[in-house]
Structure formats: C-alpha cells, structure tokens
C-alpha cells in the first residue's frame, strides 16, 4: 500500500548503486591533482577548457552563463541527468565504470556520505575550501565536512519552518501551533471541525522523521570513518515518537505519499493544512499549488518544549567534484563561483535559498516580501531557523539506501498496531545489517 512502484524501483536502484559503489571502486590510476593554489586555479581559468556539471537545480543555468562571460575560455555544460536518486545512480555507475562521469555533481547533504566514503568525490580542502567555513551557515557546512575533509561546497540549505494554510486555520478557529504539543491539539481541532482536514500528511517519510528527531535533540547516527553507530533509544527520539505516536493512533495525519499529485491536490483543496519542511518549499508551492497563493503563510517550526529554540534542516545540497573529473581546477573554480562568489546573488534572485551567512543576514534578503505568502517577510523566519540549527548531526554513509527502506519498516507503524518506537528499531536492525554487509563496522 505504501510502497509505490516508483519508490520501490528507486529503492532497488539505490540498493544496486550502493552495492556497485562500495564493492567495486573501479577508478584507479591518475585522479588528477589533490591540491592547487589560487594562482594555479586562476591560470587554469585563463587557459580555458570545458567542464560538465550534473545538476537539476534550475537556477544554475543562468549562473553558468554568467561564469562563462567572466571567463570566455571556459565552457560549462549543465546536464540534468535526473533528480536525486536517479542522479546518484548515474554518478555511482560512472564512478564504478571509471568513465562517463561529470566534473561537478550536485549531491544532497544526506547522500554525500555515500560518495565521500567510497572515494567518489574529491577532498576540496587542498583547493582552499578549508578556509571557507566562516562563509557558510553551520548546518550546511557541517553537512559537507567530515573526517577532516571538505567533500562539497554548500549550494543551498533547508532550514525548516511550518508552512500552513492560514485561511483554513482561521476558518476553523484554530491557533497556529508553536510547540508540537499544540500541533497535536491543532490536529485534533482541525479534524473535529472538518473530518476531511488533516494537519499534514505522513505515511513514513525518512526525511521528515530524521529532521524532526534532529530538532528534538536525538542523534541516532554516529559516524567515524567506516565505523558507524545507530541508536534510536536516545531521549530526542523518544520526544519525537511520543507526540507522533498520538498523531498516528488518532488518525490525525493523512496517509498520502509526499511529492505525489495527490499531495499537491491535498494542499490545493484544503485537506492538508500544513507542512513542516525546508525553506526551499516556496518554489514547489507556487508552481504546484498556484491556487494557494495568498492563503499560505510561514511560521517557525513548532518546538518540542515551550521556550526552546531548536532548529533542523531538511534537504539542501552541495556541489562536489568527482575524483574522476578530468579538470578539477576549473571544476573547483566553478563551484567556488556558484557557492561563494557572484553566483550566489544570481541564484538568490532566481528564487534559490542561500547557505551563506552574508546573504542570510543581508537586509535585502530578510525584508523581501514574498507574494505567494501574502507579502509576508518569510525569509526572516527561514534565516532565524538557519542560524539555530544544531551542527552536530550526521547522516549515515549509506543514507540513500536507508531512506529507501524507511517506508517498508517504519511505514508499518502507520498502517498497523506496531508502535513507532519499535518500528524505528526495525529500521535500525535492517540498516545495521546492511551496513555490516557493506563492510562497515556497525555498533
């Protein structure tokens, strides 16, 4: 029921990818330079050449055009080989085959570990990336670093907020929740007012669960090189399961799969009243729910206890340079331009959400009135959230696989009497067993 064919196919694809990637790191030999000075990078830019970029982020196209104008000898080709898992499959295949890969690849933070552990992406510290820490907000920077290396440069970030349909809340006289306890009450009140209205939809989605555990203070994954610890018995996880278990038990969340047409429809027809997700959501809302313009608003993410100010990230991606890249100097120059240079402004103007401190704190960005949210200065809320993200969170080095089996294990809690905490335990077991099979030291 919960496993759509697409999701299943993705799961199988991801499983294949990880197997291929971790067992058959095929590309040996000359992997090009591992460090370069600013002068050497400048020389490469003057000399010119061409690089291929695998990315699906729509604002990169204009950024590449600008970059080429700045450096006439350089040719940047942006190729959309698929989004998310599709692209990772392609990337890992290219890495295993030892050819056919890009010079730059967009990789979401949760999936980056898979590529850095298998040596598929270069450590950028030698190119000067190690000095950039202060430029980025802590959540994204922590996501791209690990084991002493910088595996990508943060391109955007997804500090979480609560997106809600204000008209719907007002119509039913329900207050916008500021804590998860209030959220539970709001869910009950909305259901009582109209049985067709659910506060949100969730049928077991890894991204949402891990982000909320992150916010609640849980740190289920500890990674140190190839040694991994998985533990869902900490206090943060318990805070999450306590509230979420009640939402599930009382049928307060709609069982619709996220990212499907039904999901967008639910937000359009008012049966899904709110959404706790990353700051990139406005782009999806404005094109996917055009009729909701003016009705929707943004509020800070509800807190696990009144008075706290804990935040978390959901989504966001960085630009990495695969080890097999034939032109690493140009590749680095390009991602540096996109993530720290003028490219940031170009992308911001086109609607992207920044990961850089300067932009997150700029007056122009903070005071922008977003038309979709009725002129609300929503960026202020996102920026506050970005600043409050705890930076000690880590994902598994095979998180893409783990996420792909989330719905099969934890999803059971949504459709049967299995308690959510036990369901997370099942996920832990499956993920641990898989990690051991892949040669990780799982504790």
């Amino acid at each position, binding site marked *: 029921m919960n496993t759509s064919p697409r999701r299943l196919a993705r799961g199988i694809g991801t499983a294949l990818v990880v197997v291929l990637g971790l067992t058959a790191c095929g590309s040996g030999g000359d992997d090009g330079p591992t460090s370069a000075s600013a002068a050497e990078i400048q020389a490469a830019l003057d000399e010119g050449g061409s690089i291929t970029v695998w990315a*699906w982020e*729509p604002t990169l196209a204009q950024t590449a055009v600008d970059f080429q104008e700045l450096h006439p000898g350089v040719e940047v080709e942006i190729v959309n080989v698929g989004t998310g898992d599709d692209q990772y499959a392609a990337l890992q295949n290219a890495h295993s085959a030892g*050819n056919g890969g890009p010079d730059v690849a967009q990789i979401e933070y949760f999936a980056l570990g898979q590529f850095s552990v298998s040596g598929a992406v270069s450590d950028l510290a030698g190119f000067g990336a190690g000095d950039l820490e202060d430029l980025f907000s802590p959540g994204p920077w922590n996501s791209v670093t690990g084991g002493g290396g910088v595996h990508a440069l943060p391109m955007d970030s997804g500090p979480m907020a609560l997106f809600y349909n204000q008209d719907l809340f007002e119509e039913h006289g329900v207050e916008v929740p500021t804590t998860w306890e209030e959220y539970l009450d709001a869910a009950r009140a909305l259901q009582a007012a109209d049985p067709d209205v659910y506060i949100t939809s969730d049928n077991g989605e890894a991204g949402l669960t891990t982000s909320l555990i992150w916010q609640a203070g849980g740190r289920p994954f500890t990674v140190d090189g190839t040694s991994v610890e998985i533990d869902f018995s900490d206090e943060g996880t318990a805070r999450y399961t306590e509230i979420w278990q009640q939402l599930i038990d009382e049928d307060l969340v709609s069982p619709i799969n996220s990212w499907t047409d039904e999901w*967008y429809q639910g937000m359009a027809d008012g049966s899904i009243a709110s959404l706790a997700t990353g700051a990139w959501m406005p782009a*999806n809302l404005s094109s*996917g729910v055009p009729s909701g313009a003016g009705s929707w608003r943004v509020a800070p993410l509800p807190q696990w206890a009144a008075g706290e100010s804990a935040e978390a990230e959901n989504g966001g991606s960085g630009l990495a340079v695969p080890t097999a890249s034939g032109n690493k100097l140009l590749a680095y120059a390009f991602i540096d331009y996109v993530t720290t240079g003028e490219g940031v402004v170009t992308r911001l103007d086109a609607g992207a959400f920044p990961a850089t401190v300067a932009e997150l704190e700029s007056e122009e960005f903070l005071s922008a009135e977003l038309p979709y949210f009725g002129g609300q200065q929503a960026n202020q809320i996102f920026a506050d959230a970005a600043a409050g993200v705890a930076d000690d969170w880590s994902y598994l080095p095979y998180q893409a696989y783990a996420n792909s089996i989330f719905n099969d294990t934890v999803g059971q809690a949504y459709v049967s009497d299995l308690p959510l905490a036990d369901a997370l335990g099942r996920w832990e077991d499956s993920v641990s067993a898989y990690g051991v099979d892949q040669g990780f030291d799982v504790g």
Partner: protein
Amino acid sequence: MSTPVTTAPRSKGPGYARLRTPRRPSTVTRPRRSVLLTVLTGLILVYSLLPLGWLLINATKTPGGLFDSFGLWFAEDFALWDNIVATFTYDGGVFARWLANTLLYVVVGAGGATFLAVLGGYALAIFDFPGKRAVFAVVIGAVAVPGTALAVPTFLMFSRMGLTNTPWAVIIPSLITPFGLYLMWVFAAQAIPRELLESARIDGAGEIRSFFRISLPLLVPGTVTVLLFSMVATWNNYFLPLIMIRDPDWFPLTLGLNAWNAQAATAGGEVVFHLVITGSLITILPLIAAFLLLQRYWQSGLAAGSVKE
C-alpha cells in the same frame, strides 16, 4: 433463414426450455447477438477509453484547474492551446527535441529491426542449411529472455565500447527483435509458395531479385505487423534509454516526460503536471496515426492463410 429449430428433445434436462425457443442460426453477415457479451465488451471499451478520455480532458486544464475541478470533466478555463504552446516552448523547446529523438529511434531502430527481421525470417523459412535447428533454438530462447535481464550486461558492454550516452546505445539494441524474426519466419513459411520461387529461378531471376520482386510484396502483411510491434515497443521504450542516456538532448519522449514529472518530487523544483499531461497526449498522437494508416495492411495479414486459393 428463419426456420425455427425443431429438434426433438433428447432428454428433459435443464436445457429443454432453451432448446424450444426459436433461434436464427448465426452467420458472418448476421452474427448472433448476446446481451451479456455486448455488456462485457462495452465495459472493456469504457475501461480502455477512460484513461484516454481523462488525458484528453485534463490536457485542457490550467495547473490550478487540474486540482480544483472534477477529474473527468472540463474545468472552467479551456487552456489546451496554451498548454500545447507551453509544452513546446518550456525549457528552451526541449520537447520538440525529444520528439525528434523519438522519431529517430523509431525510424532507424524499429525500421531497421523490421528490415533485419524480414531478411532473417525469409532466409530461415526458405533456405535449408546446416545448423538451422540450432538457430531455431537460439531464436526461441531469445524470445524467452526478458529484455530487462539483458539491460545491465548491455550497459556494461556498451560502456566499455564508449557508446553509452549516444543515440547508438538506444538504436543498436532496438535493431534486434527475436520475436519479430520468429514471426517473419513463420509468416514467410506460410505466405510464400515454393513453386513461385522455383518458377522465378527457372525464369532466371537471382535470389536477390526474386526476394525483392516476388517475396517482399507477399510479405507485406507480416512486415507491417512486425513494424507496428517494434514501432510501439521503441516508441514506448523507457528502461533502455533510462540506463543508457544521461544527456537530456538525447532523451526520447518517455524519459523527458518522466523528467518533467520528477520535477514535482524535487525540493525547490517547478511543478509542471499540466505540461506532463499535455506532452503525454501529444506523445500518443503519432502512434494513433500510425495505427490508422497501417491497419488495413495489418488486417489483410490477419486473414492470410484462412482461405485456400
């Protein structure tokens, strides 16, 4: 014609009452009607046409209208034309490129596959040579192997040859249709009288001449059948291009539409369901046209062999 059936009942079983009712014998021109059968076929007709109707209706809706209106009826604003224009202009007109790619894959891939199947099937049906039984086993075996199982080996092989991410990676595997070859083999064995070939040889025609002049016209119905099959298979092919092609400039329509659809499932992506639906409608039109144009050859093919000349 309407003589009542007066068969004397052999027993007084449950069929007795029905035997008594007068019934016209069924003929080709006046087939017997059955209400149950008509209703059943009607249901299947509705079942098959419903998705098509849905597609047609929803291609006329704006993105907002898609979610605000009843799925099987039109929304207030009729945006079919806008949607078609948007489909062809979105993202730098990449849809037209995908359409051209698909046509290329179909013309070269399915056309080539048909040509090879006709040549091979004819040769296997007409000529005797040692090892024919082995060839037969290989062909039948190849029909049984699902294409999906060959995908990964094909990918690795093509990757070594440096052919992935080029149109050849889609065209070359499409050229091989064991089923088409088998079909042509069986068809050629039935449709070409050996006497005709004998007399052609006696009259001095070479093998190539008699193939093109005598056999090929006789093979038209079978050829069109294979052509239709491989055309539809290539046009709808998703998995092979999915693993072979990275560059959106070489995407066929199936991959391109999926890429558009996937944008809705991407953080920060633009949701273009209306373009996916309109694009899907445009995608099936050429196939419908091909069927309408080719079906008369196909029908004559289905009747072949049913009458003794």
